[in-house]
């Protein structure tokens, strides 16, 4: 019945490149693609590495490479379609290229490495004052400068409001935009990252708490015979990872210093495990006495939240068998790992390995305690 040739399988990848607006690459470039590796981590910059076959008389070595098709600051967008559903995996810029010329025919390769669009924010240093703007409005003002690349701000109010006082202090930025935005995120327990999508050429800049609410992704099944979707999954439980920060604050009116009360981190990180791990270490934050009270409280909350994740998992899966792409920086359920380690996890980072005929993902998961909170996991 089916004598017509079928497509290349259920996974289709597309590569789009261009100086600022991207367009699909010529067919010769797609055919020369040997492998693509894309890494996306929560709170860090994403990166990619593409390897191309560099035949001597091919289009790439004859025309595209000398004419600057792979030059630094060229924009690269990678999209992947699994079972008819498309996703943008990456949106970034070329940073460096390597050519490996080989004596054996067919072994010359061109390797292109790059980083995501936050690189744009890290290029030039800037000195700018932000009088009377709370942190989230400062971030909004910075992110709006990059709307030419299709970056849409996705900025949230900080959890502990820090009303600005122009008379007391004007906040100044020294360094690059990315450094300043990341520093503000860290001071509030937030993360800053660019999430590509939903359409090619668009991405949203998220400055806010990690997405630990909402719909879970399709569960990772392990040790379930034919229903297993994960090749391997390893968990680690590090009891010393969690620390209880302590902050002392001095009241400028009467010079009395007092220990700030321990904040509840659940507004920033809703609990995923039933049994939270007690903090073994106690650390004292430095420099909080001189800050404004709200700022010191925010820093205390941020430090307490960042160190809360003690359970980490890592593993790899085959997208063809799993049927879905595991997205980083979102929640996912785990089934079949036993009562202690089943339940919902936050996907900390995902590395996509694409090559013709295979699509593998390596991932790391994290949460703050053992045992699942709910009695079921979304399949």
């Amino acid at each position, binding site marked *: *019945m*089916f004598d*017509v040739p*079928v*497509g290349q*399988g*259920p*996974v*289709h990848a*597309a590569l789009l490149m261009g100086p600022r607006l991207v367009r699909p690459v010529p067919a010769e470039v797609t055919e020369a693609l040997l492998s693509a590796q894309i890494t996306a981590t929560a709170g860090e910059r994403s990166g990619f590495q593409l390897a191309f076959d560099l035949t001597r008389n091919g289009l790439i070595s004859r025309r595209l490479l000398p004419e600057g098709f792979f030059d630094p600051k060229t924009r690269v967008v990678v*999209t992947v*379609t*699994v*079972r*008819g*559903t*498309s996703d943008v995996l990456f949106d970034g810029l070329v940073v460096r290229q390597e050519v490996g010329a080989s004596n054996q025919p067919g072994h010359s390769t061109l390797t292109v490495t790059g980083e995501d669009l936050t690189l744009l924010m890290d290029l030039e240093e800037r000195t700018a004052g932000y009088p009377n703007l709370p942190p989230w409005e400062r971030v909004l003002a910075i992110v709006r400068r990059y709307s030419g690349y299709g970056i849409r701000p*996705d900025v949230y109010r900080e959890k502990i409001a820090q009303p600005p006082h122009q008379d007391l202090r004007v906040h100044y930025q020294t360094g690059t935009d990315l450094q300043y935005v990341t520093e503000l995120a860290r001071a509030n327990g937030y993360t800053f990252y660019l*999430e590509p*999508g*939903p*359409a*090619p050429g668009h991405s*949203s800049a*998220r400055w806010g708490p990690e*997405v630990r*609410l*909402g*719909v879970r992704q399709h569960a990772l099944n392990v040790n379930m015979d034919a229903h297993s979707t994960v090749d391997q999954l390893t968990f680690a439980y590090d009891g010393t990872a969690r620390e209880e920060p302590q902050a002392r604050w001095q009241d400028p009116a009467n010079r009395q210093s007092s220990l700030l009360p321990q904040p509840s981190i*659940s507004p920033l990180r*809703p*609990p995923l495990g039933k049994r939270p791990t007690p903090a073994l270490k106690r650390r004292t934050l430095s420099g909080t006495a001189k800050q404004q009270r709200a700022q010191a409280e925010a820093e205390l909350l941020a430090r307490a939240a960042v160190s809360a994740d003690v359970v980490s998992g890592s593993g790899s899966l085959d997208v063809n068998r799993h*049927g879905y792409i595991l*997205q980083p920086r*979102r929640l996912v359920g785990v089934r079949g790992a036993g009562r202690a380690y089943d339940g919902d996890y936050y996907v900390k980072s995902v590395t996509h390995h694409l090559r013709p005929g295979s699509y593998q993902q390596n991932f790391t998961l994290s949460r703050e305690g053992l045992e699942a*909170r*709910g009695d079921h996991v979304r399949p």
Partner: protein
Amino acid sequence: MAELESYESALDAVPGAHPYPRTSRYHDVGIGIHRTADGTEVRYAGRRLLPPLPDGPEETRAHTVAAGERPDLLAQRYFGDPGQWWRIADANPVLDPDELTGEAGRTVRVPLAGGFPGGGRRV
């Protein structure tokens, strides 16, 4: 404990917080709430508007229907998932999916993989 429990049900109050999966054709439709006379709330999926039809031959490929074919077989063949037959029905467009493969010899337009329907937020 009350504070902890509120997280598990925090999203239940938000309409449309539990959307259809991304593979579903109802993924991008809004979830409406209808209040009946006695005050109970009934949720319903809003009307789904078809995306614009593909224009040129670059966006679709032609498939000539053979005897015994079904829309789900076509979807398995071109997309790798039989549940995606609605993409073919959308591109042609037909209301009754059986109409697609009803008579052998008809030419059906199959959309190419890689389309980005709608623009809903992922988070």
